[in-house]
């Protein structure tokens, strides 16, 4: 048996997975090759130490953290589902929403109808005098984490 093959079989040997015939050739090589024998001893020694390492326990705080994050994500995803709402502008679409909500409650896989969203009418006031000053509320690029310039500007204007 050549050293290359011995090395290929080494892990299987340590695992006790070599068949009888291969085992004979393997042991023969082990007895006659100091380098390979040293390699086997090295791996056996390491295996012993690695298997004896302590098994750290997960901290008790972990479950709470997981629960909180799942709850947060649930809330965020629920924004994307049509919800049954009473009063206000959603009243007109309530019938359609009831139908879709029932499907979700039962856990069915009905195709999701596209939510039209709020019936908003957009009024562009960009041309109004003073609008450019208001436009400064859009975050600048000085700070990648915008520090809510809206508040600073609104409070500054209110001074």
């Amino acid at each position, binding site marked *: 048996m050549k050293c290359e093959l011995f090395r*290929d079989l080494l892990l299987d040997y340590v695992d006790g997975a070599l068949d009888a015939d291969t085992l004979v050739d393997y042991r023969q090589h082990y007895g006659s090759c100091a380098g390979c024998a040293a390699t086997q001893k*090295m791996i056996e*020694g*390491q295996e012993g*130490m690695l*298997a*004896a390492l302590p098994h750290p326990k997960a901290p008790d705080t*972990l479950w709470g953290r997981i629960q909180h994050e799942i709850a947060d*994500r649930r809330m965020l995803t629920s924004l994307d589902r049509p919800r049954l709402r009473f009063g206000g502008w959603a009243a007109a679409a309530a019938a359609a929403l009831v139908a879709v909500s029932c499907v979700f409650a039962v856990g069915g896989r009905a195709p999701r109808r596209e939510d039209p969203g709020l019936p908003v009418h957009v009024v562009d006031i960009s041309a109004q005098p003073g609008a450019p000053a208001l436009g400064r509320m859009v975050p600048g690029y000085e700070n990648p984490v915008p520090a809510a310039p809206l508040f600073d500007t609104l409070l500054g204007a209110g001074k």
Partner: protein
Amino acid sequence: MSQFADESPEDSRDREWALVRRHLEGDRDAFRALYEKYRDKVYASALRIVGEASLAEDLAQEIFVKIHDDLRGFKFESRFSTWLYRIAVNHAINKANEIERRGRIRERIAREQPPEPPRGPDADRFADDRVIRAVGELSPKLRAIIALRYLEGLSYSEIAEVLEVSIGTVKSRLFLAHETLRPMMQGLSEEDKA
């Protein structure tokens, strides 16, 4: 460890599949049961791969949240444990790679160096620390293989399934890990013999 320690691999697989099904049907205790079974394993593997306790806790949290989210897509073809380890190891390796890129893991290891080796009853723990540090010097991929083999006790074929590589690759990576550990752990084996 668990009340199910004596059950056969098939029973264990079926029991876990049943828990997954119950979770998908809305049973909130089912996910908790799966979590309790694997929390220490996931945390321990994460710790071996990223090397620091607070990072490992963050990582364990991300992993379990991802498992919770992805359970909807579980195919009941593989064992739950294989699927779980796959997610856990991939996450951990990526996180460890990210830390490696910033070159900070070596600093962390150096900072944790004890001032001098303790003797007597503390000597064992000292040896453990050195072994842990030696493992920390491996690349994240090799750390993962060591964790799956020696911490989780997975067979080569199980590891191959988790990492989605051939059994041959698993063995050659493991061999490479041992060879890389050789100079770092050589002193320890001699101490052992002394």
